[in-house]
């Protein structure tokens, strides 16, 4: 049989109290902070996974921001392209009306004035900015320059890209050079929408009905370009919207997974706390009872 010296008995009781008190404090700390892991060594694998999720979450948030910015840019293009399309429809009507009016001999002047106004509107649409950035001019400041009715291309064809997911980079601007017809096929830019309007205007003013009619094909070609640009914008909006939804879901999912790793399961923690409390109280009761007992009490 092992002898248990008085001091050892006392120390082991003290130790039992300390151990149970530490357990109680830890249970309280977990409940109070809501954190299961405070440093890597608490649970190395979980902590490192939590760190990875934390980084992913930051990136997913950045993707949401990029998607928001991209969608706003594309929305501005959508609106501008819609307006440009309606302007072009009006231009076509005027050219058709103007070329037939030439035969009846009145109103060419009024039509020419309206066409010139529509051309200027088109110029300002081409130079639409969103948040200080030209949406059709690439990285440049303005897409076109209007000098006394002569419109020249001043933008570039750079693509403005937004990363909206770890895998997907989407261009969020529209190549104005293509849309407005300053394409490479016409080095002089002779078929650009502004030149076409100018030529139709001049033909109507000059009473050249055939000349005006000849521009109708060019107007239709520009309308086709606008429509396809609109289609492309719409497609990209869908793409970004999808990515944005995904990124937002990801933020939530990463946070949930991280919480599962890092955070205390409140139910379990409460049970633990109750457990620790009971154990501590039991220890205190035993210690109090044991310390009262001594042979001295029974000696007369």
């Amino acid at each position, binding site marked *: 049989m092992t002898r248990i010296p*008085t001091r050892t008995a006392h120390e082991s009781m003290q130790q039992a109290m300390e151990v149970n008190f530490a357990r109680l404090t830890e249970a309280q700390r977990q409940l109070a902070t809501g954190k299961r892991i405070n440093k890597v060594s608490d649970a190395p694998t979980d902590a490192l996974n939590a760190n990875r999720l934390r980084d992913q979450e930051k990136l997913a948030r950045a993707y949401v921001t990029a998607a928001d910015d991209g969608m706003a840019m594309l929305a501005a293009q959508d609106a501008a392209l819609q307006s440009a399309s309606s302007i072009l429809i009006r231009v076509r009507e005027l050219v058709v009306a103007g070329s037939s009016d030439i035969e009846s001999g009145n109103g060419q002047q009024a039509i020419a004035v309206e066409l010139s106004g529509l051309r200027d509107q088109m110029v300002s649409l081409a130079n639409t900015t969103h948040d200080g950035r030209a949406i059709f001019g690439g990285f440049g400041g303005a897409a076109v320059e209007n000098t006394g009715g002569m419109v020249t291309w001043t933008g570039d064809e750079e693509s403005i890209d937004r990363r909206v997911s770890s895998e997907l980079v989407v261009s969020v601007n529209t190549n104005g050079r293509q849309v407005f017809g300053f394409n490479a096929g016409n080095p002089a830019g002779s078929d650009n929408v502004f030149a076409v309007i100018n030529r139709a205007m001049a033909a109507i003013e000059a009473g050249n009905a055939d000349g005006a009619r000849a521009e109708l094909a060019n107007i239709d070609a520009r309308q086709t370009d606008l429509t396809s640009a609109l289609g492309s914008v719409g497609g990209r909006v869908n793409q970004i919207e999808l990515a944005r939804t995904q990124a937002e879901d990801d933020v939530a999912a990463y946070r949930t997974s991280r919480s599962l790793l890092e955070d205390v399961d409140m139910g379990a923690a409460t049970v633990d706390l109750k457990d620790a409390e009971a154990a501590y109280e039991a220890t205190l009761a035993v210690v109090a009872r044991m310390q009262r007992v001594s042979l001295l009490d029974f000696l007369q």
Partner: protein
Amino acid sequence: MSSTSLHIGISGVNAARRAMEVISENIANVNTDGYSRRRVEQAVMGRLAPMPAEVPREIEAGVKVTGVTRLRDGVLDNAYRSQAAGVSGAQLRSEIAARAEEVMGPLDSGVQDALGAFWASWERLSAAPQDLAARQEVLSSGERLATSLRAASQQLHALQNLISNRGADVVGQINTYADQLAKLNGQIGDAVFRGAAPNDLLDQRDVLLDKIARLTTITTSQGKDGVTNVYVGSFPLVDGITAQEIVVPQTGGPVWGINGYPVDLSGELAAVHEGQTVTLPAIQASLDEIASALRTVVNSQHAAGTDLENNPGGDFFVGTTAADIQVNTALTPAQVAAGQSSAPADNRNALLMARLGGQEIPGVGTVDRLTATLAGRLGESAAATEQMSRVLTSSLATLQDQRESHMGVNLDEELSDLIRYQRAYEASARVMQVADEMLDRLINRTGV
């Protein structure tokens, strides 16, 4: 016959009184560190009576106290002393690992978090390259990252100092204890030479041996006249009444003062040495590697871009190690090279910068992986050393309990012994009284 009884009685009374004195001493020292309980050893005091030679007869003539023994188990003492140094070494290792883990900062605001935030800030800049605030944010989160690396490096440096101070303390303590032990050896030798049993001195010696054994592994041997010689490795730390001094030179591990030979390292000395020469330098090297990899990838990609002033990007980070890395203070928000041209809308370089965390540097790895690896290594080492220390500590505690179970005082036991000897005392006194009455009858009442 009656006078023999009187003698026996007095010997019983004396023995019981001596036993009760020893019990009192035990009770008084119930809480004294390193006190080993004593027990009175008594033996029958026999002698041959001067009777006719043909009938030799032993007369039992009372009891005598043959000595007071310290109850200790030398085997357990040796076992304790051979393990103690390993345990305190493991505890110190765990302490160092726990402090080293703190170097990386808290999980949600440390180096790793700052690194993730830095990449995310480039990602955000790519969505708003014309925005000066987003450019400023890239600079600030870069500085936060650099600061957290510098803080890690400083903490590590502080830890280095702490450990080397601890090493000097340990050596100082060993020297002090060795001196005390040498003096004690002298006193014990004197007492034994005089034929006394220096129980108190022996207790003190055992306490000292325990203390030294907790700092470094020792072996002991018994010398002449009860002195104890102590060896560290094969070198005598205490030889009789001489103690050898250990000194810590400016560089390198502790050496023997007398001949400059390196001391065999174990226990806390080994843990200190390991921390100073292996653990902490490795962490410092990893931090420097991270800082240098970060600077290399960020600066070279930044130089490939163009800032708003149409210049190639300047150095983003300056400094060569984790201790001095910082964001180039000359860099203005407009000089952050977000694009490949000076156009405000150009975000092409920012898109590339945001991906640098995963860029492989040949032979080194990626910045993200280096950082995660270091954090993981520190955390796992802290967890493992703590586990090790806990296991060893509890096994030593078991040994200590066994030791205490031999040498510790149990009050109930002493009290019941006290009663036992009190009864013996009373009975012996009674024997004397009876013998006295018998003599009285013989002298005063016989033949009257």
